């Protein structure tokens, strides 16, 4: 049954904090970094005023934040941490520890460009650099989705078939510092959606176990096990999304969302908040008769391979918007999409739009131009395969 919740006007950072208060972790350990700071400050306020009963560990660095979370998770605590950009990279050493130990820590990452050049605004190079860390990665379009995904993240990560940490990504400033009306789920109903966390995967005096062990002879088998379990995650994400939708009235389509893809010749694949801008462009271009659609990639790990193949089989051209670049190759999302499409007998035309690096604006006009180019390559025209969008200078493509 659908339970209506209270609506409040908050920013993306505050939506994270409200979600954390609702799921009530035992332990929060975090170090502030722009643009995540407001989230951890609010959580700290909640612990101080008693509305969130948790241990808040004020650590001295991100490496310590993740290490403390790892320690808490190792004794079976529900744990939360949050970071951004350089902070995420500083945590990087501990990320495979957490995923290998199969501790379902949930982390917010405020997507922010990596230095240098120093930048505070959003792109996706921070989290995409950690695709291979063994964490589940989801990208949110707005503050409401962020709140819902922090909650769902605990349900998915703590599922005994999953037991894998999850990173919830939202674009720095564009989402973290923008205010919108956000509906909070009813707390009592939430209790039945997300039961208390309990696990056998912990240090326990009554059932002694060595955790984080050195398994030189079995390293490969532990990794196989991790990969096999990760393959089940997709169906659990979908089941969680459906159940959340039934209870709270919002569901997001699972691994991806297809927007106006029926009968589309050209689709754009987007990650995060730029999806919102692309929706508006699709609406107006559809009303003008252009056959365009939008694929919102929600999860990067596990990667929605089957869904991408299905879309690839029905369109003529696919464009990938990458707010990142793997220097020396191409956009990271593009590489992943291409590898899925290579399973098709007839691969659609593909263009890679490198956009929004360091927070560079991606406007409706830019997205419209991407669609126009895709419609042209769909008709057989040649275009530069990898393009920088809204750059201040010319370049030799």
């Amino acid at each position, binding site marked *: 049954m659908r339970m209506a919740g209270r609506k409040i006007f908050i920013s993306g950072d505050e939506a994270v904090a409200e979600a954390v208060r609702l799921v009530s972790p035992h332990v929060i350990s975090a170090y502030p970094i722009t643009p995540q700071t407001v989230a951890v400050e609010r959580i700290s306020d909640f612990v101080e005023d008693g509305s969130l009963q948790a241990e808040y560990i004020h650590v001295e660095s991100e490496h310590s934040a993740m290490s403390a979370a790892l320690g808490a998770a190792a004794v079976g605590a529900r744990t939360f941490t949050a970071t951004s950009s350089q902070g995420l990279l500083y945590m990087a050493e501990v990320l495979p520890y957490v995923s*290998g*130990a*199969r*501790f379902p820590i949930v982390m917010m990452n405020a997507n922010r460009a990596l230095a240098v050049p120093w930048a505070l605004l959003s792109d996706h190079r921070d989290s995409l650099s950690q695709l291979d860390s063994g964490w589940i990665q989801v990208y949110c379009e707005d503050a409401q989705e962020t709140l819902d995904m922090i909650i769902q993240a605990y349900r998915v990560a703590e599922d*005994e078939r999953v*037991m894998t940490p999850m990173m919830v990504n939202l674009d720095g400033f564009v989402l973290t510092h923008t205010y919108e009306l956000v509906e909070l789920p009813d707390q009592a109903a939430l209790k039945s959606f997300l039961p208390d966390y309990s696990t056998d*995967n912990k240090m326990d005096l009554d059932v*002694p*176990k*060595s*955790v*984080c*062990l050195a*398994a030189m002879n*079995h390293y490969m*088998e*532990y990794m*196989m*096990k991790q990969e*096999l*379990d990760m393959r089940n995650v997709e169906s659990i994400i979908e089941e969680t999304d459906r159940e959340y939708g039934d209870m709270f009235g919002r569901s997001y389509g699972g691994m991806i969302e297809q927007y106006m893809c029926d009968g589309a010749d050209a689709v754009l694949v987007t990650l995060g908040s730029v999806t919102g801008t692309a929706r508006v462009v699709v609406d107006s271009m559809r009303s003008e008769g252009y056959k365009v659609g939008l694929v919102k990639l929600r999860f990067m790990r596990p990667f929605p391979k089957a869904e991408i193949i299905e879309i690839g089989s029905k369109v003529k051209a696919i464009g990938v918007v990458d707010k990142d670049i793997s220097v020396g190759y191409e956009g990271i999302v593009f590489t992943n999409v291409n590898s899925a499409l290579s399973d098709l007998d007839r691969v659609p035309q593909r263009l890679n739009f490198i956009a929004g690096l360091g927070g560079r604006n991606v406007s409706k006009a830019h997205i419209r131009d991407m669609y126009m180019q895709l419609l042209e390559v769909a008709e057989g025209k040649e275009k530069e395969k990898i393009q920088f969008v809204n750059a201040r200078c010319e370049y030799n493509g």
Partner: protein
Amino acid sequence: MDRPKVVKYKEPERAEDYPVGATFKAGHLVQTNSGWRTFRPIIDQDKCIKCLRCFLVCPDGAIDKSGESLEIDYDFCKGCGVCAHECKVGAIRMVKEGADEDGR
């Protein structure tokens, strides 16, 4: 000396049979180590109040509490000194290997 029973290790046949996470049922060394101690812990039985703190913290389960008094299994003690550090009444001394009980 009451050593834990040795259980035969059965290698999993399928990846699915591995435990979730790099965990394993806790165990102890079963082969006598090759003398890697520099200092050996010695319990002063007159001072010991049998609080079992050392028994709890010894990382190698080398302290035995099955008898009347606590006994250290020197075949497995690695000489880390955790027990001596944690004993609240100073009943454990660390004595240089090769020296006598008084450290000479």
